């Protein structure tokens, strides 16, 4: 008895020490993880600050006209971002126009029509498209797609629309192969997997009982999709489209290969043009002079602001659909 009583303080003491040690190590680990989480915020903040600092010289020299001027002349050091902004928006918009119907079609196919054993392999194949590095799309676009368009599709379209006012300036020759439309096609393939997989995921959130009751009153598969599934998932689909748009706007290497890198705004979709990211990729290492470099960083800042807004809206929409399903 007395021996136990004598040992008690020692046991208590060592237990207290252990608890203190546990508390300390736990606090350290907690602090570490928290610091890492905050670092993610710091990264994005750092990107914004460094881009702003780097572009300050260009922005203060050109002011607002940087956004509205089309000239891009390294010799006279007159820089304006209008042509790259125009190229970025037009290529992305056409890419989305092509990719959205295709993506939604594939998602309907995968959720409603596809035989079960094929569902996973096909879904995976479409997602593998997303994993292929953009430089691969670029080299394929330059050596395979562009010559094909140049020799067959473009002369044909130019011929068809030759006498039609409006359309003949949209599809005006000569057929270079590379240019706005080729870039849009490549971008469409690249954003297709993102739109498809997000659309498929939000289609899966539709409660089966909603679809079953529509089928129960005699709706066809298309009517169920059109009147039940798509209205229910509209925000989620929009979110997926926005994610795709964010990708398309910032896509660099694939576009750099096939856009032609010409700083001018042309009405023809077959004309060479440039985008923000392609301009930076092509010219940054060759830029001589601080103002030139600074102008390129300013282009980066514009791209950053646009994609940040688009992606933030996309996230907000997808969060709303998550909140509804309680995920």
């Amino acid at each position, binding site marked *: 008895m007395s021996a136990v009583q004598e040992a008690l303080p020692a046991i208590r003491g060592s237990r207290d020490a252990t608890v203190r040690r546990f508390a300390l190590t736990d606090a350290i680990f907690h602090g570490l993880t928290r610091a890492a989480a905050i670092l993610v915020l710091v990264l994005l903040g750092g*990107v914004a600050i460094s881009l702003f600092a780097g572009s300050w010289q260009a922005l203060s020299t050109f002011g607002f006209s940087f956004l509205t001027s089309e000239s891009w002349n390294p010799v006279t050091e007159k820089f304006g971002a209008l042509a790259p902004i125009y190229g970025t928006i037009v290529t992305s918009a056409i890419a989305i126009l092509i990719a959205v119907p295709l993506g939604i079609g594939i998602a309907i196919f995968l959720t409603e029509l596809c035989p079960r054993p094929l569902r996973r392999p096909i879904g995976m194949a479409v997602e593998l498209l997303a994993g292929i590095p953009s430089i691969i799309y670029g080299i394929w676009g330059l050596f395979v797609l562009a010559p094909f368009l140049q020799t067959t599709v473009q002369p044909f379209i130019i011929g068809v629309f030759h006498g039609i006012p409006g359309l003949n300036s949209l599809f005006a020759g000569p057929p270079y192969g590379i240019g706005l439309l080729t870039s849009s096609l490549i971008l469409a393939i690249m954003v297709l997997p993102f739109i498809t997989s997000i659309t498929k995921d939000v289609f899966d959130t539709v409660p089966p009982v909603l679809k079953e009751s529509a089928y129960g009153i005699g709706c066809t598969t298309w009517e169920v999709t059109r009147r039940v599934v798509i209205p229910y998932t509209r925000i989620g689909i929009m979110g997926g489209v926005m994610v795709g748009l964010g990708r398309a706007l910032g896509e660099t290497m694939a576009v750099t290969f096939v856009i032609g890198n010409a700083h001018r705004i042309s009405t023809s979709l077959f004309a060479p043009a440039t985008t923000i990211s392609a301009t930076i990729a092509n010219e940054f290492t060759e830029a001589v002079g601080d103002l030139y470099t600074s102008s390129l960083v300013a282009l980066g800042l514009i791209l950053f602001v646009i994609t940040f807004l688009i992606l933030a809206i996309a996230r907000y929409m997808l969060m709303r659909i998550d909140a509804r399903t309680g995920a």
Partner: protein
Amino acid sequence: MSTASSLHQSRKRKNAVMMTLCVIAAGIGLAWLALILGALVYKGTAGLSLDVFMQMTPPPGDAGGLLNAIYGSVVMTVIAVIVGTPIGVLAGTYMAEYGRFSKLTTVVRFINDILLSAPSIIIGLFVYELMVRPMGHFSALAGSVALAILVIPVVVRTTEDMLNLVPNALREAGTAIGAPRWVVIKSVAYRAALSGIVTGILLSIARISGETAPLLFTALNNQFWSSNLNAPMASLPVTIFQFALSPYEEWQQLAWTGALIITLTVLALSIFARSLTGRREDK
């Protein structure tokens, strides 16, 4: 009666048309993948030989290999993963464990998702301003940092998702036998989520091994063998970019072969990564 049956007919016809269009859409998607992979294999294998892995990148008009570019890619990828993974895993741990319900987590998740899809060329500009400009020269180290910044959001996302899948009963059992929080995380949560976290790391490797834009003005390129982290270093994607746009046939052939090597690596990595977590999805 006849109007009802004609309405029925037209609804059925519309359904058939729309469903056919969906099948065609899927066909186009798959055909596109097949076209790209087909062209890649066809043109890439033509130049595939042991020399590609044994010789340096050649001067214009000469035969050679891609050894220094492959080496540079591997070195920068490894450094990026070593730097980026711990940060990503720790941040993901905070979001799923310590701070699951904190406001910070919501903000970090939002920002992380944006970083995940942010244009990689912007990261390249950031690292240029951060490291290349102050140091005064391009370096492999700057390239590695740019790639590490791309690794972090992928790993954060998968770590958080996978830790959230670990049942709370497991954590409670750990806490009930007196284990402190960090021991529960280390010995219970990490162990249960291990395959998922590894998947995230593999996917991040797949992502950065084909990245070109962030390397263009951080690591630049190097035509010669270099293992100096403080100097420009060749990488496979940048070499492909430079060679593909050149007028020399030997260079273009090497670009195709390099493209094939990268694609096979990336596809193998992502299929392997998916197979790690595939069993869980099937349930």
